[in-house]
C-alpha cells in the first residue's frame, strides 16, 4: 500500500509522509495549461532555506501502491500550520494510483524556514470504498511532477 514506509510514521488513523525531494520553478512569461505551456523545474538540494513568499514543489520519500478497495485524502501537518508553511496538495489519491505524493510548499510566514530531508509536512488517511472503482485516469501516474 505504501512503499519506502517508516513504521514510526504510521499514526492512529493516518500516515505521515516524509519529504524526499524539492523543485523550484524556472521563470516563464506565462503558464497556460490549455497550450501546454508549463514552467521548467529545477531540482534543489536539501536542506534548503525557504524565503518568505517563496514556493517549491516537493516529492515524498514514500510511494503509493493504492489497492483498488481504498482511496486516501491528503492533509497538511499541524506543524506546517504552526510555523507558517502553506501546504498544497491534490486532495484525493485514487484507488490504483502508483507513485510518490506531490505537494506544494509555500512560505507564508515573515521568516525564512529551513526545509529538510524527511520533514513531515503531509498526511494521508485511507478510506474503504463501497462498490468498484473505474480504472484510474491521471497523467501524473508514477509521481510525475508536471
Amino acid at each position, binding site marked *: *500500500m*505504501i512503499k519506502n*514506509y517508516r*513504521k514510526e510514521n*504510521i*499514526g*492512529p*488513523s493516518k*500516515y505521515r509522509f516524509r519529504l524526499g525531494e524539492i523543485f523550484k520553478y524556472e521563470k516563464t512569461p506565462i503558464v497556460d495549461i490549455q497550450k501546454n505551456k508549463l514552467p521548467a523545474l529545477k531540482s534543489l538540494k536539501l536542506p534548503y532555506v525557504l524565503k518568505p513568499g517563496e514556493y517549491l514543489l516537493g516529492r515524498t520519500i514514500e510511494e503509493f501502491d493504492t*489497492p483498488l478497495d*481504498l482511496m486516501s485524502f491528503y492533509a497538511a501537518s499541524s506543524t506546517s500550520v504552526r510555523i507558517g508553511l502553506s501546504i498544497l496538495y491534490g486532495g484525493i489519491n485514487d484507488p490504483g494510483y502508483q507513485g510518490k505524493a506531490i505537494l506544494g510548499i509555500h512560505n507564508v510566514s515573515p521568516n525564512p524556514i529551513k526545509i529538510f530531508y524527511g520533514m513531515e509536512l503531509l498526511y494521508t*488517511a*485511507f*478510506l*474503504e470504498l463501497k462498490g468498484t472503482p473505474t480504472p484510474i485516469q491521471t497523467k501524473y501516474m508514477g509521481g510525475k511532477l508536471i
Partner: protein
Amino acid sequence: MTVLAYSELVKRIMNIDEKKLEAPFKILSRLRSTPHRLAILKELARSEQSTIGKLLQKTKHNKGGGSYLAIQSFFNELEKEKKLKKTKENKKTVWMFAPEYTDLREFIVR
C-alpha cells in the same frame, strides 16, 4: 465511510496482523519494558540470534554485572512466556525469538 485506523494500517502497510501482537505487547508492558530493554530486544530481532553480552556491546551498554543480570532476568521472563528461546553453544547462552513469534520480531525490527 470507514477510515483505516492504526491496526489496519499496520496490517495493510507492513503486512503484519497487529491482533497477533496484542498478547506479546501486553507481556512486554507487564515486564516493565524500559527503552533500554526494548533497544536490546530490537537488537536481538535484528541479529536473529545473539548472546546478551554481544547485545549489550552493540547497544553500547556495560556488558557485565548488573546490566547483564537485568537483561538476563528480562529474557528469562520472556522465555517463560515462550516469546524467546535459548540454546547453549560452547558454554555460551544464545538467545532468539521463538519461531511462532516471527510477527513480533518483524514488527520490532522494521
